[in-house]
């Protein structure tokens, strides 16, 4: 499954970047990332509720195929009214998600200072 052409770089907050680095080094617990999704429509920056669900599932399905992950290896919760979702997954999976064109920005779900 190929990725569509990426329109812009994903903004990643430093705390999430730190947690990904730590988790990758330690092969530790899943990383939780809050993702803001990008609308595919020029008329709107925030995807509509149904589109949010579809975008989130599409991204996860694509990344799971790319990294060879089973559905049970990640946990996704979509906030359709906001155009956001939260993902709990191994660091490699999250890293790949950050490169997807549908993801506008990403931040850590839990701030550990």
């Amino acid at each position: 499954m190929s990725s569509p052409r990426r329109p812009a770089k994903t903004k990643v907050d430093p705390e999430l970047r730190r947690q990904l680095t730590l988790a990758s080094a330690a092969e530790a617990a899943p990383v939780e990332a809050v993702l803001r999704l990008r609308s595919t429509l020029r008329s709107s920056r925030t995807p509509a509720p149904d589109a949010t669900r579809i975008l989130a599932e599409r991204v996860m399905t694509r990344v799971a195929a790319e990294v060879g992950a089973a559905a049970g290896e990640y946990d996704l919760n979509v906030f359709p009214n906001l155009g956001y979702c939260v993902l709990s997954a191994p660091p490699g999976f999250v890293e790949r998600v950050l490169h997807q064109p549908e993801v506008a920005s990403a931040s850590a779900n839990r701030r550990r200072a």
Partner: protein
Amino acid sequence: MSRYLSQELRSRGSARVIVVLRAAMAAGAVASKAESRRLGPRFRNGGSSLALATSLGERGEAFRFFPQLGIMLGTVDHDGLAALRADHDVVAVVGAPALSPIRPRAVRAAKLESAHTWGLERLGAPALWERGLTGRGVLVGHLDTGVDGRHPALAGAVAHFAEFDLMGRAITPPPKPRDSDQHGTHTAATIAGRPVSGRHVGMAPGARLASATVIEGGDAVARVLGGMDWALGLGVRVLSLSLGFRGYWPDFLAVTRILRRKGVLPVFAVGNEYAGSSRSPGNYSQALSVGACDTQGRVAEFSSSQRFDRKADPIVPDMVAPGVNIVSAKPGGGYQAMDGTSMATPHVAGLAALLLEAKPKVTIGRLEAALLTSCARPKGMSAERGGHGIPAGVKALEAL
């Protein structure tokens, strides 16, 4: 060990932590109270902060237990941390800093002795009630520590209630409205408390609340997002948020813009950390940020304020509202007085609900402008500390 944990242990000898229990990891499982009690002695009694002092569990235990989430929240020292991490029933122990309810500066026992509290009077709520406005038909979002729906002042006020887990999922089956602390019941009743024996604590006694527990026992961004998403889906027009991260964090910036675009007025507390400080999301230019004033119309000393290097709305708070010696509902019945910008914020949210009843189709920009236009700074109040000043109900209605 995280930087937060190591810093706290080094500087204070203890740290606030979330303990994730193994028993609750399976889908649908609920952790047992017996398990939490066995681990209880690992926590320290009487931590150094008000946050801990007011978050003690039942029977004076030095921790809080959240069976649905499968976690415990409390303060540990080095030995307690090591013991918890070595325990077979514990999956993880993580630091619990940053995002938190904006704790009241003071909490006092209080009786409700007048027909309405000074805060309602100061903002002109009784004058708006006389014009037939009570907030009827307006749904206000209230994301906090929960709410005691059985309190007489909140009878019929809580239209929707939910609790969210660390991934922002509503816990099922939905519990009855309850407060994991005291903060949420106090703020909820200030927004929409009903009169009891003719005495009022609520700005908009006809409004209804969509109230959710998103804080205490695991302070994750997704919990708040889950609450916001849920509230948006229910059709709230105002969102009252008395919580935040210390300092400027952009986590909720985009979502605050979304709230506005969807016709929701974000009314957020600015924080209780004195001049030169503020909290996010209360310090975004897209939020209606609220500081606290006292009965004399002075900015409360603890009320945060800050100037940012930005063109739009460089000063926070945007306004100040009653936030000292505020009497409101106490979980389990009765009343208590609290000080804080957390107490000021629901006053403004309630005022917005009264105005929305008058003009349900008004845009959020227009509503915010009417509130700001109505503000006046009493003599001696600077814009740097008090923003536009204190809003006035009737004047805001006329400006709508």
